């Protein structure tokens, strides 16, 4: 039969309109082009000009259409009318909703502003939400960083004024050896994917350290299937090997770090272990050239790294480097010792150390790029040690994460590979001082009825005097951030807010106000307990223990039924947003970048963007900054108005590009009424390009530092000195030894003494250390599927066709030993509970580890899914097994299940055992919770023919 070839419209336009904006399917914030036809979204593609994704788009980004048209979208403001959790709501008007919110929040503010806890989840507007909390006057604000990766951020900022991901990246185009630690499919999405492609194309060796071999780890040249929570020991052993083989960059250490700074050795003294300082307050070093003590910050000295020196007062001091080298040269960090702890063979550790050293020192890069250092000395070329690393949640989500992250950065620094060609590179506005100068606000006496806080709630303590504690050393914040429980809790402890508020520990709250955080489900530890805390009533008052809960979300998540007032948000395609340098930037190493979202479609529901709503509430409350002198709203145009016109400091606003009356200023400049138009014309972003002489060694680069000061990124153009030895930690430790005005309660002294070691170290994660390992022999961890990382994939009609249920993955040999076969149903038991699920056997997993995809399990009825959706019937969460509190100790007190330095949630410390379920127990996961009912009604679509409306135009 002959072919009857049809006519094909080879050149049909995609749509009738194309608008640029910024993706929000995860936290990457890629530039996208949204094509519309007849007002409907036809196609979303990556923006080739955008610095983050350069045109590509991930599996989530391309499924954005289904997120935007999800049947789980909330339709209108809701007021709870039945009991909490029942899902009985009445739809109300925005006037009523905003009136209620204002009334509740106004009452609290006039009584005690700290009785409002404002916690936001995957919030990309923390510069606004944090400022709202400050102007309202509550210290109880944070976003989701405390249960995500604050260990990574804090350890990096305190150590070298940067961190991974948003603060810096490997020099992907030049690096010759790359090690990836604890990254499954997450932070960041497209940048890591494109980078791995580049490394592959150049034949660069990729080493992946991860208990599980999926995704990025699957394509590595070498996979190190490490035991969870032991990465710090592996890194310590690498350092041990580099020291033993004399393969570290001593010149780099004396130039850029505090390695030569002298540490006072005077046991028992109030300044033991602090840095010896001269009369001008500058740190001292021993100058080998003059044979005397000298200001360690001077350029023309020859600082000693080894030895013991006498201070003018007769006491002795040693270079901090000597202390550090002593620790890592000891047998405690030998590859053999590390092999027993990590499961990585000692030979492999030695070989990795050799490969790192060989690449760093024998494959040095020299670029023909002159630059001038902080002391004004011109260098004709820029040299670099081309080894690089990246790490994320697998490292940070442990109770030893802060020190493990520090160890990782110390390794980078010893190799001389920070901000050099081929190494790690800062992304401006980083580097910042170590640590950044802002301290947390909310000290005793600074929270007052009807008054704003004197500063931003979040900051970086530099010693006990910066803690938010009362006279007895008890916490002033609801999440106990910046208390002796978690002194450097730079992102707060969102995972503890509901528990603490319900237990009135340290005090109750009147209103809990949350945004975009599924705290009654996959964002909380110990979900059954959290549901109890959300619904329990105080028998004396008859009120809920948390009397009022306001929640804003775009979708019918598991959290919605537990709130009293719902402020429905828009989807990401219906809103203005700004990706600000004041918040979490999207910069690149060659220059800072920021971006906006613009509405590309109008909402078809009675919903409003949360940021505009918050600004409205701020004005109704007459908060300073939200109203003008006459009490009229200062930003009547909502968030878009705020983005353009709000000034954080003189000439500094949300967006750095197109400032000034003529739109030609960068960084600082008057508000430009046409700024958003300028951004839209530029593809909804602005990328400033640094001059070549500013691009490397930014921490010590005069041209960069001068410019960074000029545009307001840093307060002074001083070099950023890497803190191998972290003096602020020693200050906390001295307090625990009984020195100073602010001291920890007796119950906390041993803990502070142990964990506030100024030199990083590895210790066993808490859960494993307190439990009987024979009873709970397995580590249990989670990963997010690459096509769902950081987004709400379960409601997405396309993404859930790829993954709609999760299994517990277990090593084939381990399963065989336990008599468990593929597809068997098993019980997972932890110290606090049991979960039933189905297993899948695999090879590429550490044999002492089981794992699953996180957040796949959904509660029946949530997210617009049918009650028999596999997410609800066979999906499961490990959250139910993770305690938010550690077992009682030290006088009956229960610390949160967090890092003792930063308060980072220790998700991956979980220990379990597994047993085969009985045959009659197979088929459904457990525990089960009552079905949720969508207040807007159920909409079960039998068939989706999305796209049929475009057929005519396409043919």
């Amino acid at each position, binding site marked *: 039969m002959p072919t009857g070839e049809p006519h094909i419209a080879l050149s049909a336009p995609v749509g009738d309109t194309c608008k640029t904006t910024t993706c929000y399917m995860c936290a990457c914030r890629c530039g996208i082009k949204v094509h519309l036809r007849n007002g409907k979204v036809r196609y979303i593609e990556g923006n080739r000009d955008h610095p983050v994704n350069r045109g590509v788009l991930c599996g989530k980004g391309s499924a954005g259409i289904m997120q935007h048209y999800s049947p789980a979208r909330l339709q209108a403001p809701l007021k709870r009318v039945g009991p909490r959790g029942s899902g009985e709501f009445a739809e109300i008007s925005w006037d009523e909703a905003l009136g209620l919110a204002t009334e509740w929040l106004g009452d609290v503010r006039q009584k005690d502003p700290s009785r409002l806890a404002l916690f936001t989840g995957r919030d990309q507007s923390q510069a606004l939400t944090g400022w709202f909390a400050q102007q309202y006057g509550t210290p109880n604000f944070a976003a989701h960083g405390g249960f995500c990766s604050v260990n990574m951020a804090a350890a990096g900022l305190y150590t070298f004024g940067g961190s991974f991901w948003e603060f810096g990246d490997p020099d992907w185009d030049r690096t010759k050896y790359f090690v990836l630690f604890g990254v499954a499919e997450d932070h960041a999405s497209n940048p890591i994917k494109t980078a791995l492609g580049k490394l592959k194309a150049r034949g660069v060796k990729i080493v992946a350290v991860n208990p599980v071999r999926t995704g990025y780890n*699957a394509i590595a040249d070498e996979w190190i299937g490490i035991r969870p929570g032991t990465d710090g020991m592996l890194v310590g052993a690498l350092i041990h090997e580099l020291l033993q083989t004399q393969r570290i960059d001593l010149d780099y250490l004396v130039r850029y770090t505090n390695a030569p700074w002298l540490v006072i050795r005077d046991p028992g003294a109030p300044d033991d272990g602090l840095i010896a300082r001269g009369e001008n307050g500058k740190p001292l070093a021993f100058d080998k050239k003059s044979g005397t003590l000298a200001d360690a910050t001077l350029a023309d000295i020859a600082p000693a790294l080894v030895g013991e020196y006498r201070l003018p007062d007769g006491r002795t001091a040693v270079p901090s480097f000597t202390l550090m080298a002593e620790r890592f040269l000891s047998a405690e960090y030998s590859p053999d010792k590390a092999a027993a702890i990590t499961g990585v063979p000692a030979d492999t550790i030695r070989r990795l150390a050799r490969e790192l050293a060989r690449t760093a020192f024998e494959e040095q890069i020299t670029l023909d790029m002159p630059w001038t250092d902080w002391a004004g000395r011109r260098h004709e070329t820029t040299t670099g040690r081309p080894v690089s690393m990246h790490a994320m949640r697998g490292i940070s989500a442990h109770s030893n994460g802060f020190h493990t992250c520090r160890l990782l950065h110390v390794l980078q620094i010893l190799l001389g590979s920070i901000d050099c060609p081929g190494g790690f590179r800062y992304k401006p506005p980083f580097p910042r001082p170590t640590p950044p100068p802002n301290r947390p606000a909310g000290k005793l006496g600074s929270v007052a009825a009807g008054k704003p806080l004197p500063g931003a709630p979040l900051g970086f303590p530099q010693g006990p005097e910066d803690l938010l504690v009362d006279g007895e050393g008890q916490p002033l914040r609801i999440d106990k951030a910046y208390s002796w429980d978690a002194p450097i809790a730079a992102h707060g402890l969102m995972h503890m807010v509901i528990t603490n508020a319900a237990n009135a520990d340290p005090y109750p709250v009147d209103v809990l106000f949350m945004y975009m955080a599924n705290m009654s489900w996959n964002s909380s530890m110990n979900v059954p307990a959290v549901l109890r805390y959300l619904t329990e009533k105080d028998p004396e008052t008859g009120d809920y223990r948390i009397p009022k809960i306001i929640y804003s979300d775009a979708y019918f998540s598991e959290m919605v039924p537990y709130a009293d007032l719902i402020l429905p948000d828009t989807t990401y395609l219906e809103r203005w947003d700004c990706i600000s340098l004041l918040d979490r930037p999207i910069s690149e190493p060659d220059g800072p970048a920021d971006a906006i979202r613009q509405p590309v479609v109008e909402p078809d529901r009675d919903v409003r963007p949360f940021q505009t709503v918050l600004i409205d509430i701020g004005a109704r409350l007459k908060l300073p900054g939200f109203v003008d002198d006459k009490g009229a709203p200062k930003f009547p145009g909502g968030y878009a108005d705020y983005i353009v016109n709000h000034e954080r400091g003189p000439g500094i606003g949300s967006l750095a590009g197109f400032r000034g009356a003529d739109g030609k200023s960068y960084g600082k400049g008057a508000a430009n009424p046409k700024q958003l138009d300028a951004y839209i014309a530029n593809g909804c972003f602005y990328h400033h390009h640094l001059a070549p002489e500013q691009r490397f060694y930014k921490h010590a680069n005069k041209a960069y530092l001068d410019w960074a000061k000029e545009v307001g990124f840093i307060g002074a153009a001083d070099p950023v000195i890497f803190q191998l030895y972290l003096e602020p930690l020693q200050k906390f430790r001295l307090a625990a030894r009984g020195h100073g005005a602010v001291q920890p309660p007796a119950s906390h002294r041993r803990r502070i003494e142990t964990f506030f070691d100024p030199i990083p170290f590895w210790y066993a994660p808490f859960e494993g250390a307190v439990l009987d390992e024979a009873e709970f022999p397995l580590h249990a961890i989670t990963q997010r599927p690459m096509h769902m990382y950081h987004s709400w994939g379960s409601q997405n009609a396309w993404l859930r066709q790829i993954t709609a249920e999760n299994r517990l993955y277990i090593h084939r040999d381990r399963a065989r030993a336990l008599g468990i076969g593929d597809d068997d149903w098993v019980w997972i038991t932890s110290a606090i509970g049991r979960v039933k699920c189905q297993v899948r056997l695999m090879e590429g997993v550490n044999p002492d580890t089981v794992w699953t995809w996180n957040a796949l399990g959904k509660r029946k009825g949530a997210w617009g899914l049918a009650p028999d959706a596999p997410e609800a019937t066979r999906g499961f969460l490990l959250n139910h097994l993770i305690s938010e509190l550690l077992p009682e100790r030290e006088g009956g007190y229960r610390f949160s299940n967090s890092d003792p330095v930063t308060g980072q949630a220790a998700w991956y410390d979980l220990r379990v055992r597994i047993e085969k379920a009985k045959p009659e127990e197979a088929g459904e996961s457990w525990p089960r919770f009552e079905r949720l009912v969508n207040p807007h009604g159920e909409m079960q679509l039998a068939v989706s023919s999305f796209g049929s409306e475009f057929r005519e135009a396409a043919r």
Partner: protein
Amino acid sequence: MTTLPESTGKKLGLVIDLDTCVGCQACATSCKEWNTGGYSAPLTDQQPYGADPHGAWLNRIHGYEVGEGSQSRTVHFPRSCLHCETPACVTVCPTGASYKRAEDGIVLVNPDTCIGCKLCSWACPYGAREYDYADGVMKKCTLCIDRIYNETFEPEDRIPACVRACPTGARHFGDLGDPTSAVSTLVAERGGFDLLPETGYKPVNKYLPPRPRRDATTTPAAPDVSAANGSDDGSVSARFFAWADKMLSR
């Protein structure tokens, strides 16, 4: 049954790098997104929010492990129509709806003449055909025929949606009939291979194999300095401190 062109001017197809693919699904969802509103519109989904969500996808990614122990590896394998030179899916078609284009070798289905008999999906050994239950016709990869010649696009965007989206650069599009093309060069350099060559359908698409690993199985162990020098007596540490105690200028 349907006849094939004697030869095609070009052999347009994909080259997929299994060494680089991380299994992120970007090519699958971007394909779904483009094609549900393009030539194949719609790619229907059954029970999109129900117990058994499934629909028509023109590109699917499978992840699996091969080998055991230290030789085991995880592979991500994207699967779509290979635009074979002698495709049985075309020759079995009773209506001529399935056909291979003479000018570029792309295998297409004419939705107006497809009767949904599914013979083609039985004939295809690669499982590359997708029946749309709502539309009642067979759907398949078109190599984004409505993109690759689209004059309303910038020239660099005249590529299939999957290639356009792929973040790792694991997907390449071009003329595999031209031995000098970039894709042909890549196939030659990297040992690109045919899928199931024994079935004899001569697929145009090629796969690039994972590169040999560089780990403990292929790299000799490093010497143990402590063992060689004896660390117990502290001499390694002493030598380190002597080495570090040098005149270092800033």
